[in-house]
């Protein structure tokens, strides 16, 4: 199809429809409310349902219910709303149900502000809810990538039978870019007969399915955790995505940055290249699983003297970068998280300070 001009939020909504999602439950919050506005108009056209919950807590369990029935389902929210959904996220992960959660991050902690932030890295990557679970976390850097990751998220949620998160920030949600919707990312729902509570009438097996997160028997609970861990290990083998920018050069500094922040870094890298200063960028596109080997390899290139994690946070992903670099290089950090995104000039100034 021809390109259209869309806000990230609208494009995420349309991508969900193109992926075959007909169930969308949400509660409005800036800066992601356009997803709900868009889907409120579009879902009835394709026989789908948008239902606004009375709170994000309710929405989390509406998602659990639909996912447990084997339906393709999505919610979108922004930081404080995701906090309220975190309990349900833990339940959904434990019960092994596929669902797509979108967090268009705003400034925090608390109510914070409505401007862009990357302050929910820990929440998305390290848990958020309780217990030993992970989300597969995608970090798009623009509207087109948000579309592709959203469509893919439904397939992967079913492949791993668990929640997948799209972690964007307010800029990704609010900005407009030309976008097209790829046909090749459409997928058929996988076979749910073995686990979903989809009703006995259409199912071939006569086994009753039970979706639950309560395992009182210690052996059984341990087994469930081992099953989850095996999935996360498989994700680490099969799902890692990242991009290198100017990494073919003999760069002296390696920036690790994701999402909106990485685009500012790219502009800064182009500006420094004109001055003859080579800087590389490693951009994780999946935050869990994290591109551990790629970061280590890029950081330990002979020309590379310093590594810096640049984030719209007070320093979160930097902990993963340090872990991956294994002490082979000094790892610095720069971040702002009030809502004003650091400018390319500021990044140039910071990088020059490392040289």
């Amino acid at each position, binding site marked *: 199809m021809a390109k259209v001009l869309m*806000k990230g939020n609208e494009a995420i909504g*349309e991508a969900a429809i193109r992926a075959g999602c007909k169930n969308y439950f949400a509660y409005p919050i800036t*800066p992601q409310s*356009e997803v709900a506005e868009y889907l409120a108009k579009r879902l009835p056209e394709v026989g789908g349902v948008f239902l606004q919950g009375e709170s994000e807590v309710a929405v989390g369990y509406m998602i659990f219910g639909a996912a447990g029935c084997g339906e393709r389902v999505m919610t979108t929210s922004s930081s404080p709303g995701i906090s309220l959904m975190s309990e349900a996220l833990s339940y959904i992960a434990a019960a092994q149900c596929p669902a797509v959660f979108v967090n268009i991050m705003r400034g925090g902690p608390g109510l914070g502000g409505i401007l862009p932030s990357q302050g929910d890295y820990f929440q998305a990557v390290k848990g958020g809810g309780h217990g030993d679970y992970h989300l597969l976390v995608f970090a798009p850097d623009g509207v087109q990538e948000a579309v592709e990751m959203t469509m893919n998220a439904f397939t992967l949620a079913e492949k791993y039978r668990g929640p997948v998160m799209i972690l964007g920030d307010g800029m990704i949600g609010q*900005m407009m870019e030309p976008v097209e919707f790829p046909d090749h990312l459409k997928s058929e729902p996988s076979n749910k007969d073995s686990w979903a509570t989809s009703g006995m009438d259409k199912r071939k097996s006569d086994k009753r399915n039970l979706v639950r997160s309560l395992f009182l028997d210690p052996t059984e609970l341990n087994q469930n955790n081992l099953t989850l861990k095996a999935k996360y290990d498989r994700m680490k083998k099969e799902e890692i995505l990242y991009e290198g920018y100017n990494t073919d050069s003999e760069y002296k500094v390696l920036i690790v940055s994701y999402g909106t922040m990485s685009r500012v870094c790219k*502009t800064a890298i182009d500006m420094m290249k004109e001055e003859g200063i080579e800087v590389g960028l490693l951009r994780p596109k999946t935050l869990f699983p994290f591109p551990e080997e790629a970061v280590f390899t890029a950081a330990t290139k002979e020309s590379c003297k310093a590594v810096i994690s640049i984030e719209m946070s007070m320093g979160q992903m930097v902990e993963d970068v340090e872990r991956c670099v294994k002490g082979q290089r000094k790892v610095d950090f720069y971040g702002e998280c009030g809502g004003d995104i650091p400018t390319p000039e500021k990044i140039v100034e910071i990088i020059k300070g490392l040289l």
Partner: protein
Amino acid sequence: MNIDIKGIVVICGNYGSGKTETAVNLAIKRKMDGIDVKITDLDLVNPYFRTREARVLLESLGITVILPDRQYMHADLPILAPAVAGMIQQPSELTILDAGGDDVGVTVLAALENHLAKKKVQLLQVINPFRPFTEDVKGCLRIKEEIEASSKMKITGLVGNANLIDETLPEHIYKGYDLLKEVSSATGLKIEFITACSDIYPQLELNRFSCPVLEIQRKMNPPWKRLSIKGVLTHGV
């Protein structure tokens, strides 16, 4: 053909049709023409990319900018500055009200009804056919009806803002103009002007258009594009 718009002009249209980019560039163009210009940001529905982001630039050019109090600049609250009523009562040669998107975005006009009713007001609908819901005449008319019902005002003219931002080609401008002509003949509304970004303006065959073309320079940019030629930030709040 020159743009000679004067008086009180409300810019409306569907969400993301480019109202603010159009309003800001129209304000700058008319100021450059030598007339006094006032502009206000009535966008109570959009949290980012609002006229208020161009305040520094507009004021440096001598354009009066009416905004909510600074402490509410980044709030997603429906704040209507009292000074807006004042600027309608005492308009300058051109007074631009940049409304929010869709019918929801012009609800605010109903709150200003008492002030607007006493004045001659132009209500211009901005159309970008590359945006969802306005890709055809039917969609444009539906938005028009919704805006008119919500604002309690009638749309008086059309503005074409066909674009795909950086990926805009002359063919997109021509396609947008063709749609606009269809909307114009379906409604009887005049095409006030169309826009074209300065990168592609020189490539356009202007004799294809029977309306003026406003050459625009993008002011509403994401942070990685916010540099001017001199490498200096050109806006901020």
